[in-house]
């Protein structure tokens, strides 16, 4: 290719059999591309299964940093004969389909380049052990691919060397497998292919990480010391990340650890433990997904009403019910915002990528302790389990953890008349004490039953109503405390806006970029927290039409907006995607174009962007 701009713009997809060892080879590939300085994003599309079912791994490679998922595959590495038919159909015209030609097949597409590499045969010849024959197939295709599209071999070697630093034998075996794949290409196939990659410089100060790893690390940096959890896809790796880092970074000389990780018997117990530990002055959290939220709801209500800090990560998956455990959705917005019976409301944070997962994990403990209430970090499977290229983590020397209004022994002695639920400061947030602070002062009774300012049981309706009003006041305080929305004014004159939250941001940016090039300016706001900041009302009121992008059927964030703030619901137009796959820019563009074509009024509201990119 003579035109340089066409380098590093492609989607590469691997089709594999689950449990065959392909995951590490595919991750190596993405990581090697990242280390070459090329912007990449990786999506693991996997089944809820341990072994045998089809699994896919997509890598989007984009020099122009348009890293949302895209339909249409440029290069398909098809290693699963079960899905050949489906896989070959996804390949774009002039695309490439690589398959294991140990068993020759006749494919019915002549508009693409079909490349056969007899991987199973190559492995059968090279290895005697049946397990090695299977496992190294993955490394063999990676070797072939590296030559075909130009992945720097030295980068791959370095990556393997880093990975197997303590296992030199494994390193040698992997290099051998890579060489087998490369040798076959050298001898049999014209390379490099037209679609290829080459070194770039886009990844300075970037890291490649998934959101669960980042959030688990964030909890370590938050000073969390108790994690209680029940395994559930896709949240499990978050606690595993916390455990890995805490066990490494919090080990004492006597062999003990400054952290306790407890795998509970179920989600009810997991959240109960987190509540107990927070009540007792530790920073504690739990992580779960949709079904876990349903189970935890009663306890969430207790923490809300008894005003106990609690951090809860919900890595959303496809619902309802057991739904699609290995697919992504944003369909727990309402069930989390109003989790539990009675008049309840919960604080929600919406991270949009793994970088924000790290910071939100830290801040969530500050908000939970400052506001003395549950904070639910609403991530999702796409953020949580996929590797993203994001800015590296920074640390502000001046940052201090906010433990909120906790009275120490001296303060208790100076306090005139301590009442656990007294609104002393008028911000709706009372002062709390940790057990054993003072021999005679500060003890109180924590309960889910209605209580007066001193924590005493009450059935007095006036007091009960006052408590509910104060909790509402606390939520007003939260509006200004929580992360404010991110607003990008692309066109000061346009009357059209778009709102999103969480993992859809990359697709929005890509779509708005595309529409800008067509002269359609749309202003963008990304919601980062609930309860909603007044900036959200302002943004909506400044526009005549506001698209609201969500990955659920019921337009949950739109309903929450209509419910909670004073906006005209008719100007909120939903763009909904709920097939469980990460959102594509094309889907958004199509939906926005449909709205514009259908409604001439919308057309008139469009103004061009400030500058055409």
């Amino acid at each position, binding site marked *: 290719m003579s035109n340089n701009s066409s380098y590093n713009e492609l989607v590469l997809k691997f089709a594999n059999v689950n449990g065959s060892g392909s995951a590490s080879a595919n991750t190596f590939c993405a990581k090697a591309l*990242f*280390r070459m300085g090329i912007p990449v994003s990786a999506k693991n599309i996997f089944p809820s299964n341990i072994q045998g079912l089809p699994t896919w791994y997509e890598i989007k490679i984009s020099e122009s940093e348009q890293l949302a998922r895209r339909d249409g595959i440029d290069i398909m590495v098809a290693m699963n004969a079960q899905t050949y038919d489906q896989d070959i159909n996804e390949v774009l015209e002039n695309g490439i389909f690589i398959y294991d030609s140990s068993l020759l097949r006749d494919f019915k597409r002549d508009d693409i380049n079909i490349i056969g590499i007899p991987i199973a045969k190559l492995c059968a010849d090279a290895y005697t052990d049946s397990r090695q024959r299977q496992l190294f197939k993955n490394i063999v295709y990676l070797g072939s691919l590296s030559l075909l599209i130009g992945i720097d071999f030295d980068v791959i070697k370095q990556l393997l060397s880093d990975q197997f630093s303590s296992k030199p034998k494994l390193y040698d075996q992997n290099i051998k497998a890579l060489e087998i794949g490369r040798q076959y290409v050298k001898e049999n196939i014209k390379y490099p292919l037209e679609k290829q990659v080459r070194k770039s410089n886009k*990844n300075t100060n970037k*890291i*490649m*990480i998934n959101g669960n790893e980042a959030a688990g690390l964030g909890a*370590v*940096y*938050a*000073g969390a*010391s*108790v994690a*209680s959890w029940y395994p559930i896809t896709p949240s499990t790796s978050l606690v595993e990340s916390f455990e890995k880092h805490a066990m490494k*970074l*919090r080990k004492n000389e*006597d062999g*003990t*650890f*400054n*952290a*306790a*990780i*407890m795998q*509970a*018997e179920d989600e*009810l*117990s*997991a*959240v*109960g*433990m*987190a*509540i*107990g*530990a*927070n*009540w*007792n*002055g*530790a*920073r504690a959290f739990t992580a779960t997904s949709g079904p876990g939220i349903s189970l935890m709801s*009663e*306890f969430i209500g*207790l923490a809300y009403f008894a005003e106990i800090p609690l951090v809860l990560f919900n890595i959303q998956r496809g619902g309802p019910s057991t739904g699609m455990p290995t697919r992504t959705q944003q369909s727990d917005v309402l069930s989390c915002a109003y989790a539990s019976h009675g008049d309840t409301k919960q604080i929600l944070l919406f991270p949009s990528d793994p970088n924000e997962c790290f910071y939100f994990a830290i801040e969530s403990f500050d908000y939970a302790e400052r506001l003395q209430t549950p904070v639910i970090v609403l991530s999702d499977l796409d953020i949580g389990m996929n590797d993203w290229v994001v800015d*590296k*983590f920074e*640390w502000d*020397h001046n940052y*201090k953890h906010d433990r909120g209004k906790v009275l120490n022994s001296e303060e208790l002695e100076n306090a005139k008349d301590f009442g656990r639920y007294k609104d002393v400061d008028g911000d709706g947030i009372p002062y709390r*004490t940790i*057990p*054993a*602070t003072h*021999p005679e002062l500060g*003890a*109180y*009774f*924590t*309960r*889910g039953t209605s209580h007066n300012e001193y924590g005493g049981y009450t059935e007095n309706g006036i007091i009960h109503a006052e408590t509910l009003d104060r909790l509402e006041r606390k939520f007003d305080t939260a509006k200004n405390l929580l992360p404010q929305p991110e607003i990008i004014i692309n066109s000061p004159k346009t009357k059209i806006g778009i709102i999103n939250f969480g993992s859809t941001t990359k697709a929005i940016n890509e779509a708005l970029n595309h529409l800008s090039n067509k002269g359609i300016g749309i202003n963008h706001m990304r919601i980062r927290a609930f309860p909603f900041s007044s900036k959200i009302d302002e943004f909506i009121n400044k526009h005549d039409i506001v698209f609201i992008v969500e990955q659920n059927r019921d337009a949950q964030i739109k309903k929450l907006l209509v419910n909670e703030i004073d906006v005209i619901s008719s100007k909120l137009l939903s763009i909904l995607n709920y097939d469980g796959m990460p959102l594509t820019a094309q889907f958004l563009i199509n939906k926005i174009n449909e709205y514009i074509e259908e409604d001439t009024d919308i057309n008139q509201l469009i103004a061009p962007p400030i500058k055409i990119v």
Partner: protein
Amino acid sequence: MTFIKKPIFRHPSLPKNDLGLTYRDYEGLVSTLCAGCGHDSITASIVQACYDMSLPAHKIAKLSGIGCSSKTTNYFLNQSHGFNTVHGRMPSVATGANLANRDLIYIGVSGDGDTASIGLGQYCHAIRRQLNVTYIVENNGTYGLTKGQFSATNDKKSKNKKGADNPFGAIDLALMAIELGAGFVARSFSGDKEQLVPLIKKAIDYNGFSLIDVISPCVTFNNHPHSTKSYDYIREHNTAMGELDFVPERENIQAKYNEGENVDVTLHDGNSINLQKVDSNYDSRDQDKVVNTLRKYRGEGKVVTGLLYINEDAEEMHQTLKTSKTPLNAIPVNDLCPGIEQLDKLNKSYT
């Protein structure tokens, strides 16, 4: 009834313990339970035990679930932090609290509904983990607050207030606790303070999960001639039959007997409960024999009380988890934060 305040006045001649505190200093609010409720006797026994042991009340956390029994944490140890959690879930909250601060004394109070039905799972797993808690079940075989349904500890064929048989078998919480590995398992009777107070003291001292299953008659609802956990109230007070809230004043039932004795304790209505006090030859360290003995007596319709089982070598939860000797809640969060240098290293590991 919590608006009734106890008088602040303390008689100057009241005896004081090693901390210079009187029995009254360990009390809580006035009970709102039915007069004569066995639970109030247990409350008094907890107060007595803590007073006798000269425990600093602020170093005790008292936790409970939901139900009559769970209300009682409000009626003792006013200087302790209390936590009335949700129904059946006290064990998990106690576990979390204990994870945060291993140095406090944890007293968990629950009932037979709270523990044997809705909370059975959490109960089992707290035992499995050898949570360091004194877990007191105030066991009356009935749901009091919802007016007298059978609970899961009610014996099969025992009748409810309307005369219907309990169709299902009873869960024996003590036997279950032994099977699940509890380090300390006792059973007692709310009317037997002489036995209960020392048991509570031993349980508090024990480093691990200690259960005291206390049979505690419900004076209002489990009151039939054929009930195995209470007595026939109707015969004596038939004028009160229709009025659910009517409970006459009366003294608590007291039982006094020596070790090894098998006594019938006569209850107010003339009905009785058969108590087998564990004899001195009984080896509470031999798990198999303990289980067999308990099964044997249960088959004979007897209720064995006393310290049933103890394992002094059981590994407490924090030992298993290898948590720091310093309570986790006492380590400043800033010290728990690895800081910028580590973050730089971690950043590098993600490239």
